[in-house]
């Protein structure tokens, strides 16, 4: 991640200039042909609080990240399940079997998918060392492209570009259940020793997890789709719950950027606690402005 610290502000300035130029030209053009009936306000004042909340929270997160980069050691609580990552990889290596990594159905801009790709790159660094085959059937074409790059880089960083096999990261199909059918078939035939299910999952979660369980694989799951969590908890050995999935890549990589951001998220929770606690106390005394405020803002 070289040069990152300095290029960020430069990038922001460059980007801002470009976007402001585009916006300015466009606004100008549209102002000339605007009719009287249209809403030509530049800013919807009803949304000012959301805007301010976004700014406040962004500033907190960014501050925490820069603070973390200054080199101070940051604490992160134990995430049960992540200790098992090494165990899972070790077992696969011992048994001479493969590891299957499933990123779910999310697209590339999906937060869970990105978190999962970060975890995958950590896993890939380890499998590169042990020369354990890492199979990644993909459901989204763009995700497949990014993952190929990431895993290749991970193998390169470990000095094992020779162990990287692009055929192991492949597109299966975009259809939800055809994907489940294909992955199930691969699981029962290849019998991977460990199965990672990390990312965005829908109804196929239990189809995959039960099949993985039936072949006796160690399964480490994680998703931010709260309605699929019960099935992972029932059928997998370890499950990362909701936000734990986002925290996992920070936990594994110990990267200051991710750790700092996690700290920022914790401050965000405090910012949520504040209005809730104050609002409840005010309500109990019959003062309703906090509740009315949140009702208006939406």
């Amino acid at each position, binding site marked *: 991640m070289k040069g990152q610290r300095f290029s960020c502000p430069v990038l922001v300035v460059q980007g801002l200039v470009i976007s402001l130029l585009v916006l300015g030209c466009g606004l100008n053009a549209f102002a000339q042909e605007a009719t009287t009936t249209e809403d030509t306000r530049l800013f919807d004042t009803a949304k000012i609080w959301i805007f301010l909340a976004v700014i406040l929270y962004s500033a907190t997160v960014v501050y925490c990240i820069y603070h973390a980069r200054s080199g101070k050691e940051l604490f992160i609580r134990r995430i049960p399940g992540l200790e098992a990552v090494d165990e899972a990889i070790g077992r696969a290596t011992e048994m001479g079997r493969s590891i299957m990594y499933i990123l779910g159905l999310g697209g590339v801009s999906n937060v869970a998918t990105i978190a999962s790709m970060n975890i995958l790159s950590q896993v890939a660094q380890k499998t590169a060392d042990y020369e354990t085959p890492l199979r990644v059937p993909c459901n989204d074409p763009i995700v497949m492209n990014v993952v190929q790059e990431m895993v290749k880089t991970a193998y390169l960083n470990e000095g094992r570009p020779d162990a990287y096999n692009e055929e192991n990261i492949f597109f299966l*199909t975009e259809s939800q259940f055809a994907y489940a059918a294909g992955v199930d078939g691969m699981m029962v035939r290849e019998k991977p020793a460990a199965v990672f299910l990390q990312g965005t999952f829908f109804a196929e979660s239990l189809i995959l997890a039960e099949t993985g369980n039936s072949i006796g694989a160690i399964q480490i799951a994680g998703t931010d789709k709260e309605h699929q969590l*019960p099935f992972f908890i029932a059928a997998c050995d370890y499950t990362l719950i909701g936000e734990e999935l986002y925290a996992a890549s920070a936990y594994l990589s110990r990267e200051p950027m991710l750790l700092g951001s996690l700290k920022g998220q914790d401050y965000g929770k405090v910012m949520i606690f504040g209005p809730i606690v104050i609002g409840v106390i005010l309500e109990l005394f019959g003062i309703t402005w906090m509740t009315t405020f949140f009702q208006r803002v939406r």
Partner: protein
Amino acid sequence: MELIGIWVAALLTLCIYSFLYRDNPFYRFAEHLFVGLSVGYGIVLTFHQGFIPFAWNPLQEAVTKQEWVGLVRLIPIGIGGLFFARLVPSQGWLIRYPIAILIGVGSGLAIPNVMRADIFEQVHGTLAPFAQIHAGELGPFQIFGVVLMLIGVISTLTYFFFSVEHRGVVGGVSKIGIVFLMIGFGSAFGNTVMGRVSLLIQRVDFLLHDWLHLI
């Protein structure tokens, strides 16, 4: 044609169910066919509902109506075309352009919408019942429920504190959070059984009624 269709559908259904016994040639047959069909279907759908209306039609309109603004669509087409750079190893990095745009758009859309629809909304939802308490609209049992809800939200959220050690007060509260999480997961699991069984009922209905005419 319909009769053949029902037979094909029924046999494919049985092929997939055979997986419950174990992997076998019938399942492998259906599995591979299914993957192929679904990819083909995806291609057709993307062509007719993505490419034609969003790329081809605007361009065609721009040319026929001589509204040259429409040619703006050539930009995304060009950017999309950069995906093919993957085929040229030395130029592979060019696919970062379209990916960066897609990720940027996704992230930009997410920020205000998540802030509004999830955070503000959920905080309001947590506060709203307390207004009802003060107004005297709730009975004692309902008040108990509201207080429990507050405890649940705060303790669950506490469980997701990562930068503090879960000891002492934080540890205690996050333990309560786990209790709520487990009850929540259990109830969601139980609630899903119905939906899943409905799917099976529908398949059984298809096999017994539409195919075998037993019911």
